[in-house]
């Protein structure tokens, strides 16, 4: 399995390097940059949901906190963007710790609702705390990020930078999974009783993963703020949290690549839908962007009903089926379990 992941990772890097040469359109590069932000948050969420088996419908809150911390510290207090992002990380670590300890004692549905409630509260604060967050109009004049003295100015530069961060995020996630800590998490997911009988401190691990996933989300939010250079509460409502869960669930809960695929597919979906709206019009369906929500829900439902392991497992399984079919045809016994 690890061999497949390394191969996938290399293919991923190559794709990142090559894509801007194929796609010359700044608009689509921009869409892909936003996709990278979603990817990053989803990887963290995948570690929490797929490996530690905990639900959070509130990760949008951590994205918001990262974004707003970066925005406030850079535009109002003239901090360096990197330092502001670091500060955002520290803040979410503290908050995730404070919420995590009581929340992670709760089971399934309780935790889901608690995180949903938390995300709603953060959104309300973002709208209402006008002095701090700028209220509904938000914060403007957020500076761009600079790297080694050079400011990231073009969409293409930001593309490489953000997907580079995603690649690093994937690297960390895979290292963690294939480690004592990662196995501990999967053990908790498999059987909490057995895991604790082997010396694993369940609550401690859950809180640590919760914090780590919050850090991923916070970085994602900060990068977003530095890219768009202004933020308002609009994108940070409850729908964002639900969207992140949707991406991870659709892509494949139990595998990092699943989260990446889910984020990419659902981030590009609106573009795809508006692209084919022309064709839909021909067969009599007048597609409007308002229908997006309906399509998201429909896709999520269909995947959850028929392909609950997500697209990734579906592809993986399909490839496996194809492989064993060819092996059978070639007369060699296929090693299937």
């Amino acid at each position, binding site marked *: 399995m690890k061999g497949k992941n390394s191969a996938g990772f290399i293919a991923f890097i190559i794709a990142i390097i090559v894509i801007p040469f194929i796609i010359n359109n700044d608009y689509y590069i921009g869409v892909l940059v936003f996709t990278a932000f979603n990817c990053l948050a989803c990887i963290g969420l995948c570690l929490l949901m797929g490996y530690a088996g905990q639900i959070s419908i509130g990760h949008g809150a951590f994205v918001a906190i990262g974004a707003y911390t970066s925005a406030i510290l850079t535009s109002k207090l003239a901090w360096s963007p990197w330092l502001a992002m670091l500060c955002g990380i520290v803040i979410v670590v503290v908050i995730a710790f404070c919420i995590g300890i009581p929340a992670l004692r709760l089971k399934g549905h309780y935790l*889901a609702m608690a995180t949903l409630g938390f995300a709603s509260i953060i959104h309300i604060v973002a709208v*209402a705390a006008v002095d701090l967050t700028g209220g509904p109009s938000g914060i403007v004049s957020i500076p761009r990020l600079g790297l080694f003295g050079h400011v990231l100015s073009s969409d293409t530069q930001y593309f490489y930078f953000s997907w580079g961060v995603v690649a690093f995020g994937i690297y960390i996630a895979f290292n963690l999974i294939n480690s004592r800590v990662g196995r501990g998490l999967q053990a908790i997911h498999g059987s909490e009783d057995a895991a604790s009988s082997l010396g694993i401190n369940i609550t401690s691990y859950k809180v640590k993963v919760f914090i780590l996933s919050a850090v991923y989300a916070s970085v994602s939010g900060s990068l977003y703020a530095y890219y768009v250079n202004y933020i308002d509460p609009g994108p940070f409502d409850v729908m964002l949290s639900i969207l992140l869960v949707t991406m991870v669930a659709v892509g494949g809960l139990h595998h990092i690549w699943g989260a990446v695929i889910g984020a990419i597919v659902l981030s590009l979906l609106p573009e795809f839908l508006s692209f084919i709206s022309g064709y839909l019009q021909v067969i009599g369906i007048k597609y409007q962007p308002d229908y997006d929500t*309906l399509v998201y829900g429909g896709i999520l439902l269909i995947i959850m009903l028929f392909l609950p392991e997500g697209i990734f497992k579906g592809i993986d399984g399909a490839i496996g089926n194809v492989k064993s079919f060819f092996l059978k045809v070639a007369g060699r016994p296929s090693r299937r379990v």
Partner: protein
Amino acid sequence: MNFTDGSIADVLQFLFMGIQRGCIYAMVAMGFNMIYNSTGIINFAQGEFVVLGGLMMVTLTMALNLSIVFAFILSMFFVIIAGILMERLTINPVKQPTVLRLIIITIAVSIIIKGAAMCFWGKGSHYMHHFSGTEPLEFFGATILPQTIWIIAILLLLVAAYVYFFNYTMTGKCMRACSINRDAARLAGINDRKMVMLSFALSAGIGAIAGIIITPIIQMDYARGAMLGLKGFGAAVLGGLGNSMGAVVAGVLLGILEALGAGYISSHYMDAIALVILLLVLFIRPSGIFGSSEAMRLKEF
């Protein structure tokens, strides 16, 4: 809107406002409890039933000019069908129901309903005629809307119907049996699948009623489901998950606390107040006011 003179009239005013909203939270909480009792899952789409009920009522009364009673029944019927469809299509067929999977499924349904509502009714808010006029009634210096009296009356009726149904009808007793011990109920000949479907139908119906009676006051729009659902859940947990009578008390209490908070602390953060209470309950005493912690641990989820 900060009242610091502390007069009785102000307190009463907030009390009435709180009761008005609280009754709705109570109904949403009852809906949550019904499905929770029969299946052990929390239906994230509960808030959307409320929205559907309200919006359907608007269309039937304002656009099609049907009488209130007739439209009430039709709207309820419509939402109940939606609830049954949800159970039949998305809950019943699931062969390997894990917590995560069921939660995401109910979230998916809530997204679909919300999206459909947006498509049919647009993004604006919709007004509906009050049941019996808009002239507020005076009461010790505070005013109360006739619609609020309707809300209180209907909640009391619902509570009475609930008590009657679950204690004095065969079907109701079967549902209770199912929720206590599903296998034993099956062995006794009760069709537990039907009971689950019934619980969804009833839950949708209650949600619809809540939506219908509150729409004249708050003007329903497609996006209200999430917040109503969250607060209703807060009421359900506060009253002890699974305990519908506790939910009624907790719902009204939650509404009153929210209104008092809005009046005396800040109205901008009004929604946040109920949510903070939800979080506090979950973190400090998840079994709620009327639940027992032992009983809570026995339920799977």
